[in-house]
């Protein structure tokens, strides 16, 4: 069989398997990376912190989602506190059931690597690609003796590289905090315009918030169709994709894009697109 035929046949088989994989994976069994877990937790945190204090009228809008907000808040891990994510937000009703204004008690962790030179950023990017986490998250075993041949471990040397750039321990901690909070790539004072979905306890998007200041302390939040009209999310009711690209307050000028295929009640995984 010629290579061209093998190439095409393999491509067809792979694509068929990928299509089946897209249809088959239920949300609850999908593997989550450490970053994704934190991203999900972070979105829930915003839901909890931002909405738990919203007054009673809002509960009428989507009782199923919001009655569980406090329990979500209670489930937040201590690590979030250790990372400085503990928040004491206050939300005021602008329009009951539609719009809320929330203020967080402290700034979100900013990513200090945004201050690197383009050359340094490129070097850091190389060091993190491909990250060892992606292999570990998938359960692949990497034994220490094999290190010398493992590009993955080289990628894990981000800290060493940053230290060589003169990063202090404080900056390294800030870098870690931004990574786990899903705010990596957002520098100090750059949060204005960042969006984050409001996610109910059933993992469905009920609305969204947009940061209105550079530190990420002030958020303009909308529920339901209003969030779509404000171009914060593209749809409500969709199942959130357990984290992933575009999830969390990444700086994105456009709305948080939800996949229409997840608007149904099925548990099909649909990533933000």
């Amino acid at each position, binding site marked *: 069989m010629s290579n061209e035929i093998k190439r095409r046949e393999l491509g067809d088989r792979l694509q068929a398997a*990928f299509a089946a994989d897209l249809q088959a994976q239920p949300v609850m069994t999908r593997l989550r990376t450490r970053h994704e877990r934190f991203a999900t937790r972070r979105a829930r945190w915003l839901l909890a912190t931002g909405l738990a204090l919203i007054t009673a009228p809002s509960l009428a809008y989507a009782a199923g989602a919001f009655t569980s907000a406090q329990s979500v808040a209670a489930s937040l891990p201590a690590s979030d506190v250790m990372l400085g994510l503990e928040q004491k937000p206050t939300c005021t009703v602008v329009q009951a059931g539609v719009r809320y204004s929330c203020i967080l008690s402290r700034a979100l962790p900013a990513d200090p690597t945004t201050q690197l030179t383009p050359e340094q950023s490129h070097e850091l990017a190389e060091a993190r690609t491909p990250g060892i986490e992606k292999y570990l998250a998938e359960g692949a075993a990497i034994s220490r003796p094999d290190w*010398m041949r493992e590009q993955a471990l080289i990628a894990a040397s981000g800290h060493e590289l940053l230290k060589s750039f003169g990063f202090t321990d404080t900056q390294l901690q800030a870098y870690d905090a931004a990574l786990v909070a899903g705010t990596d790539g957002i520098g100090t004072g750059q949060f204005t315009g960042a969006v984050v979905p409001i996610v109910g306890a059933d993992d469905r998007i009920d609305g969204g918030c947009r940061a209105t200041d550079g530190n990420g302390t002030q958020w303009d939040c909308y529920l339901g169709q209003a969030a779509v009209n404000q171009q914060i999310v593209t749809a409500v009711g969709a199942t959130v994709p357990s984290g992933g690209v575009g999830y969390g307050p990444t700086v994105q000028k456009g709305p948080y894009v939800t996949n229409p295929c997840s608007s149904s009640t099925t548990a099909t995984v649909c990533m933000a697109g």
Partner: protein
Amino acid sequence: MDHSKHSDARLLFASAHDDGAFRVLYDRYVDRIYRYHLKRCADQDAAWDLVAETFAQAWIVRRAFRDVTDGSAAPWLYGIARNVLLQSVRRQRLEDGARQRLGLLERSEAHEVVPDESWLDGADEMLDGLSENQRRAVELRVLDDMSYEGIAGHLAITPETARMRVHRAFKTLRDQYLRIGGET
């Protein structure tokens, strides 16, 4: 949707819910990944198996891709290809975990090939490119899990020098890896 003009990063982004986007990425890189594996295993059938495993792993971990090289997925894909090769040599059988997970593997297709250390000659060459000082420093750091202070004491240098030595070795290996991968 016509993905043909999209960057690798955009293809991977779209492939979160579009297998067609990933197919374009496959078509874009399959020949290079095939040559990469064939050069090392010198067996066409085995090389195709390794290619299949490489793209299957890439699919599974595609959401972890970060666009950090101006839209190119080449370093990321070569990293996965390299990992597949290493796993195969370590286990002395062609790695097939991702294909099994995706239901792609047919036992009748299994090859009676046993990967051996010679498949990793390229990797050894890369290490040989390090200076003796750098090589010793990274051995102590990673294989012996030694702190920089420990390395410094062992090699009679300062911790800062140890750190820089390890970092430069990492950088050298990375550059060599990308160069070898890119030319393959």
